[in-house]
């Protein structure tokens, strides 16, 4: 191959980009692994081995983040997949107002997460909020969405789903639209009903789309920060703290070594969950 390609530029042209990549990406990455094992004040550091990691994993105000993050990622991912699939099926039909309805579903994705979080935090106020006022009219006493520690995390997750389901839907629509008409014709000849159409054609053949949604939503859930911070700042207490918000708080507190250790842990958690999931999903994919 090399003989056939006439290389007219030297590799030195890669240097500027390479240097930038090294200084701003590779170097900090390597340094972060080192500083995660130090007591660090930005100007001064002391090597303390794995103590930061032990602190992070043993202290209840820190390790509550692991449980919450997993719950948050699984809940948002599942709901986005299920709702996204149904909306995708619905919105890939030939309706007159399809353009309008599709934009309606996609619209929340375009909003700023912080603005969405603040707006929903207001609507979820237990006594004056829009949601509970509306529920009161129909005679239901709404819960304290963000104040009750047993549901606060789920409330935030629901808002995340509201905001993120549009993206999932669009990916599903693209997947469903790419299924060739032949399959539907074959189904019609065999006398299948619409359930068969959904279960035996759409679900298996939109698998690539579903895999993308699962991976994107799951990784997004694992590293989520902005929505939680805008809505509850991890509260009440630590009940909605995610790994990322805990890391941020440690950084604010001036524990630079500890927060870097948290980032390393987050990196490991995301990789340890996302790569096997990705490999697993890829194996199940079928060709059209």
């Amino acid at each position: 191959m090399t003989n056939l390609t006439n290389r007219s530029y030297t590799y030195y042209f890669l240097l500027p980009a390479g240097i930038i990549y090294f200084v701003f990406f590779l170097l900090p990455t390597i340094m972060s692994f080192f500083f995660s094992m130090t007591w660090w004040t930005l100007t001064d550091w002391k090597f303390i081995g794995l103590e930061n990691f032990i602190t992070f994993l043993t202290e209840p105000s820190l390790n509550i983040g692991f449980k919450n993050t997993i719950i948050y990622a699984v809940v948002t991912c599942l709901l986005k997949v299920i709702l996204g699939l149904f909306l995708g099926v619905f919105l890939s039909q030939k309706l007159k107002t399809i353009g309008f309805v599709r934009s309606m579903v996609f619209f929340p994705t375009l909003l700023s997460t912080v603005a969405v979080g603040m707006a929903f935090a207001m609507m979820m106020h237990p006594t004056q909020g829009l949601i509970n006022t509306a529920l009161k009219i129909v005679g239901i006493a709404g819960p304290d969405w963000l104040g009750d520690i047993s549901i606060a995390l789920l409330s935030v997750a629901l808002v995340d789903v509201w905001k993120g389901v549009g993206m999932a839907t669009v990916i599903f629509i693209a997947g469903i639209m790419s299924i060739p008409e032949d399959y539907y014709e074959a189904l019609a000849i065999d006398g299948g009903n619409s359930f068969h159409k959904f279960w035996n054609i759409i679900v298996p053949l939109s698998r690539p789309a579903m895999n993308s949604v699962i991976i994107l939503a799951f990784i997004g859930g694992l590293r989520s920060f902005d929505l939680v911070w805008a809505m509850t700042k991890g509260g009440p207490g630590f009940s909605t703290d995610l790994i990322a918000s805990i890391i941020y708080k440690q950084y604010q507190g001036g524990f630079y070594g500890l927060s870097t250790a948290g980032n390393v842990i987050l990196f490991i958690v995301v990789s340890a969950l996302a790569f096997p999931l990705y490999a697993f999903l890829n194996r199940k994919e079928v060709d059209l």
Partner: protein
Amino acid sequence: MKAKKKIFAVLSSAALFAGILAGCSSNDSASGDKDEDSGQVTLTLLVDNQSNLDGMKAVTDAIEEKYDIKTEYELRPGGGEGDNLVKTRLATGDMTDLMAYNSGSLFQALNPEQNFLDISEEPFVETIMDDAKEALSSNGKVYGIPAASFMAGGWFYNKKIYEELGLSVPKTWDELMSNNEKIKEAGKTAVIGSYKDSWTAQVIVLADNYNVLQQHSTFAEDFTANKAKIADTPGALSSFEKLAEVYDKGYLNEDFLATGYEAGLQKLAEGEGAHYPMLSFALPMLQANYAEELENIGFFPQPGDSADENGLTVWVPGGVFVNKNTEHPEEAKKWMEFFVSQEGNDLYNAKIKPQGPPAIKGVELSDDVYGAVKDMLPYFESDKTAPALEFLSPVKGPNLPQIAVEVGSGISKAKAGAELYDKDVEKQAKQLGLEGW
């Protein structure tokens, strides 16, 4: 594919770290330069963008007129973000000539010996009140002047409700609780909780320090030296128990977890609630939004076990500090000297009414000070004040707001909360490299 994954892995971790660094952006600093033509010196001053600068600007205008020293303001964010910015600018040698910052533990965490000019020998330092001077010092050397008056932490109360129900200002915790019971029976909110802003939940714990020191006079030193833990010291633990008691007895407003600071002030001013445990820096905001209700708002310290030991926990004002590497140390000292003079104080107080007694000895207050501040003065006159713990010990855990919310909303018990806070504090002490931890 494998290689791609690896690159993705490397990239994503780099992106995470870059995200962390993005939190500490820094502005260009113009360090003071002499204007060749006029001989005028410009000092740069870094202040947070949360405070009202009218008072300070009145003083610096006068300094410019009098000494031909111009002050150029640079704004920074407040809170934790501002702390990061200050630390980063100090670490990169990019600090302004003058810097306004918290006193006490936050200041002491900035490595003062290395970063700030020692002003212990200046004559004007003598006029600073001792409580304030201590919080502006590190290892016995003074580095700053108080940027405002003292503040106090305690309980605001609505005088109308007190009159209506025939209550009197409580001198002991039990009296306060029985007042609360009567207010609750009358169908009003006894204690306003605004734990949506989690920092407000700490007030009952922090404002209890006078009482803690009454029971255990060396607590601050022992705490710093790791010889005393909050959870094992009955006097200190009772601060957390008081916080829990207010919730357990149902004195808080129903929506205390969804109410924020500003809504809390509104409830107090409009008489929806009788008490609001808060710092006196709330006064200007009350004045701005509820000026006509202000005369109905009084203040008392958080009471302890005995009426004889009733005293006030005070907050030392933030300070103004001089960069050790400034090119104009003499001008900076002149600036400070004027700032703490009676003239400087008058100019300041004419713009911003003091939120507590002055931090400079011998400075007179005008008659139109807030009623709540007048309620505080007797404690200063009879020397029944103590600084909050954060001014006596560099150890303050960053998670106290969240822990206070947990204790104050029944998620965890007082003892468990205190234990968790003791652990939180340990991290801080280790980070500061204190002895004995």
